């Protein structure tokens, strides 16, 4: 029977199947960080259980680590306690850990792919909803809660009901200045924050094939914002080229064997999806969010919507609440919204390609006086590569703040926060109320739009900037 990519990966990992029960699925890679793991390790200790496969588990510190003065003890005692708990748990249960200060430290979803640990056809989980990122490789990757973290630590498996499949086909050539982030914001605006619920999304079509691995990771990363557990892109030459030569990638005969297998993974031509969505890439333009969920987005050329145009009562109330929180008036041109803070980084847009896109805009330009700009690389390796390419000099010369690796202002668990009422243009993934600090207001944007916004001081695209002499 014809099968989709997701169905093939699922079938290859079923340990136990019984009618009326969830399948027991084997997990190839379990990534761990400091925030969602302490209670899971504690559960193991209470039950007298061990970690079944520490060699398929990897921990790093990312969510609440500081991005300055990392050679000093973490100032916030509660953050420090959580990081210390991770270190103690990893030592006790023999789980490999890349702590703050290690050259391999960084955001868990940047670190896995960079080490070559994320490969096509694998199952990858982490106590973090943005685990969907790893689906860019044709892996089935999804976020789990802490009870499930404990379950995977103890058994290397998870009991799961099969997901439904949704094909999201994006055909055509992307116009200049339009990136993977704009595609995903357009998709979520179209299908809504609940549109992907219960589904694994498979991104297909010529526009997706044309994306780099970094772009595919951005796209899959945001699948959760459409309510989907996972997003996937079928592995192809772009994927193999990215994986080959990385530290944990197979070599020699094992590489050939792996690639032969990976080539069998793409969805069969006659495979049937439970749902289909189509997007014409040529009609896309830079997208920004105006509200308090990632589905509340519009092309940058648009204006703040009015509750009067809502299709039902629930939507009307949602728009009213969002406008009230965001301090916005219906009809205001999005390009006229002034921004205080620009944040570049996160597991969505904290990779080298994102930093290059920002540098391209900032080179020879200055961040507006009214704006503070924070650039936080997704990992130490990304930071070193950016510095090797001289991007840090571009950032610093433009007046931006160049930081150490971590999740930072994406979720404001470390000292990098918005003050109440402050407004950001952010390359991160969530514009929820208070996400970047209590009372803070977030507009989600692509790296290029973030950089142009930093220069202009209001929401802007690179095409809005005067040419450099």
């Amino acid at each position, binding site marked *: 029977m014809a099968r989709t990519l997701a169905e093939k990966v699922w079938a290859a990992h079923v*340990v*136990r199947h019984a009618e009326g*029960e*969830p399948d*027991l699925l*084997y997990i*190839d*890679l379990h990534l761990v960080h400091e*925030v*969602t793991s302490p*209670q899971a390790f*504690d559960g193991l200790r209470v039950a007298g*259980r061990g970690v079944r496969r*520490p*060699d398929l588990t*990897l921990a790093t510190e990312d969510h*609440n680590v500081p991005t300055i003065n990392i050679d000093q003890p973490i100032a*916030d005692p*509660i*953050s420090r306690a*959580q990081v210390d708990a991770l270190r103690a748990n990893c030592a006790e249960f023999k789980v*490999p850990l890349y702590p703050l200060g290690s050259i391999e430290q960084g955001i868990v979803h940047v670190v896995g792919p960079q080490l*070559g*640990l994320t*490969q096509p056809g*694998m199952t990858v989980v982490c*106590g973090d*909803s943005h685990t969907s990122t790893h689906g860019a490789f044709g892996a089935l990757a999804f*976020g*789990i*809660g*802490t*009870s499930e973290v404990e379950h995977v630590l*103890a*058994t*290397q498996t998870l*009991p799961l*009901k099969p997901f439904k499949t949704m094909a999201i086909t994006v055909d055509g050539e992307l116009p200049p200045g339009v990136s993977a982030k704009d595609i995903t914001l357009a998709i979520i605006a179209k299908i809504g*924050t*609940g549109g992907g619920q*219960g589904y694994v999304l498979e991104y297909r079509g010529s526009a997706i094939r044309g994306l780099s691995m970094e772009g595919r990771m951005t796209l899959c990363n945001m699948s959760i914002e459409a*309510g989907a*557990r996972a997003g996937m892109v079928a592995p192809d030459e772009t994927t193999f080229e990215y994986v080959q030569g990385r530290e*944990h990638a*197979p070599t020699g005969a*094992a*590489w050939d*064997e*792996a690639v032969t297998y990976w080539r069998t993974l793409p969805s069969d031509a006659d495979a049937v999806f439970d749902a289909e969505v189509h997007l014409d890439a040529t009609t896309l333009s830079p997208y920004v969010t105006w509200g308090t*969920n990632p589905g509340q987005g519009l092309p940058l050329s648009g204006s703040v919507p009015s509750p009067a145009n809502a299709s039902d009562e*629930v939507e009307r109330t949602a728009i009213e*609440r969002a406008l009230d929180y965001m301090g916005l008036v219906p009809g205001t041109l999005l390009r006229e919204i002034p921004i205080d803070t620009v944040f570049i980084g996160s597991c969505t847009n904290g990779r080298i390609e994102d930093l290059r896109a920002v540098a391209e805009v900032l080179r020879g330009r200055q961040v507006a006086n009214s704006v503070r700009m924070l650039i936080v690389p997704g990992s130490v390796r990304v930071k070193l590569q950016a510095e090797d390419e001289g991007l840090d000099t571009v950032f610093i010369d433009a007046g931006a703040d160049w930081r150490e690796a971590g999740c930072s202002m994406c*979720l404001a*668990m470390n000292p990098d926060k918005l003050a109440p009422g402050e407004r950001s243009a952010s390359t991160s993934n*969530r514009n*929820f*109320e*208070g*996400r970047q600090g*209590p009372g803070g207001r977030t507009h989600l944007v692509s790296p290029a739009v973030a950089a142009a916004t930093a220069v202009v001081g209001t929401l802007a695209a690179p095409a809005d900037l005067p040419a450099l002499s």
Partner: protein
Amino acid sequence: MDAFTTHTGTAVPLQRSNVDTDQIIPAEYLKRITRTGFEDGLFASWRKDPDFVLNQPHHAGATILVAGPDFGTGSSREHAVWALQNYGFKVVISSRFADIFRGNSGKGGLLTAEVPQETVEKLWALIAADPATEVTVDLAAQQIRAGDLVADFAVDGYVRWRLMEGLDDIGITLQSGDAITAFEKQRPEFTPTTG
């Protein structure tokens, strides 16, 4: 985990859609390394508003939350479930739950009862008319009863069985230890290890 068969209590109407887990418990409260004490972080930012529904004295002691659609979206933080439970909630009723939140709730013993939006609105109306209205959520019959309202709710059959038996997932899986070991023996050798 305690077995769940039926629960009767008063209910709080949360008349908002898209309640994400950042609202249920903001990130600044996630730094604890225990499973208890998260009740002070529940809806922390909204609770600063004296008019917020949870701050109304007539809803004190309520154990059932009746929310708008798309409840529990966003972050996978299980702390959202713990915060609701630590505060005293046993059941959340909504027309649509985010997948990870629903999964986390099932693991932790918080019942997510899915009903059509019109049932949610009838419950809101009943509670508005009398906040002391007793709401019964009967897991065995998959039925919600309040005043003259009798409505069925949806819940995953396996989760229902596990909740009613009070069973621990890990214990169930460990019974398949031999199957896991057999599976591990035939995994392709090219799959990576982290060591």
